[in-house]
């Protein structure tokens, strides 16, 4: 009797284990869905508030670049700013800063004071570029390939470890291929 009961316990344990594995697989699939990968950067004109001119995003195509969303009201963005200054000092990777839901005047003052790591600083006041790319919040970083498609995204602050282990290899792979 005891033995039979144990078999049933084992059967239930295996069944629930399988159910958990299945649910985990579904979770992984759904979390990959809608991750913005392969979305293309919209071909729109944006205001470059540092160079005080209009920038066609299409003009950035031709080589890989980084699109970094930030804002002066976002404490984490201000904290990680030095990482971006160091990155652009040590590498020749073009980084485009997208100032999200912010006052470009404040952003300009901040960049002049703390250093400007961006080749272009565009203003996304209404946040429409952000929504088109599936932005979840600031700071958020997108790696865009030479034809304007997103190939990698990172939500949250970027430190040296993330840069070296996740972002730079993606860019180097594209440059080598």
């Amino acid at each position: 009797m005891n033995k039979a009961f144990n078999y049933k316990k084992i059967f239930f344990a295996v069944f629930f284990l399988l159910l958990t594995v299945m649910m985990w697989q579904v979770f992984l699939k759904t979390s990959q869905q809608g991750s913005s990968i392969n979305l293309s950067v919209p071909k729109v004109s944006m205001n470059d508030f540092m160079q005080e001119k209009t920038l066609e995003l299409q003009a950035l195509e031709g080589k890989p670049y980084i699109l970094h969303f930030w804002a002066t009201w976002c404490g984490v963005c201000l904290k990680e700013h030095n990482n971006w200054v160091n990155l652009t000092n040590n590498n020749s990777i073009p980084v485009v800063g997208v100032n999200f839901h912010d006052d470009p005047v404040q952003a300009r003052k901040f960049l002049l004071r703390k250093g400007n790591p961006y080749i272009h600083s565009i203003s996304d006041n209404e946040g429409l570029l952000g929504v088109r790319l599936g932005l979840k919040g600031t700071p958020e970083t997108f790696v865009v390939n030479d034809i304007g498609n997103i190939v990698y995204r990172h939500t949250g602050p970027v430190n040296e470890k993330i840069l070296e282990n996740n972002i730079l290899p993606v860019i180097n792979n594209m440059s080598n291929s």
Partner: protein
Amino acid sequence: MNYLKLFLVFLALLRCECILAIDGNIEVEKQFNSIINEVRCVTCPNQSIADSSAPVAVSMRHDIYQSLQQNKTIDEVKGYLVERYGSSVLYEPPHSLKTSILWYSPFIVLILGCCVWYYICYLKDK
């Protein structure tokens, strides 16, 4: 007299146009209010974008309104958001093979629970 008639016809046409314009806006407004209550805020997932004041939610509302004004259907707008944020952006995810466990697992667990309850109450004593 003829001028008066013409003027009245002109006024009537003007009124029709106003009514049509207002009706159009009301329809968009209804669709807009319906969608924003069904879409989850991606910054603060416990709120709909109707309730949230997060910058991304504000932009999503703006984008949805623009899309509806461009005569996009509710399904097209939802599809656009799902493509960017995944099906979890909707409070009611679509019924599909991928979401089948999400929709049907409560029933499976209920049936299993009933089986366990039946086993404990009736079969175990025998």
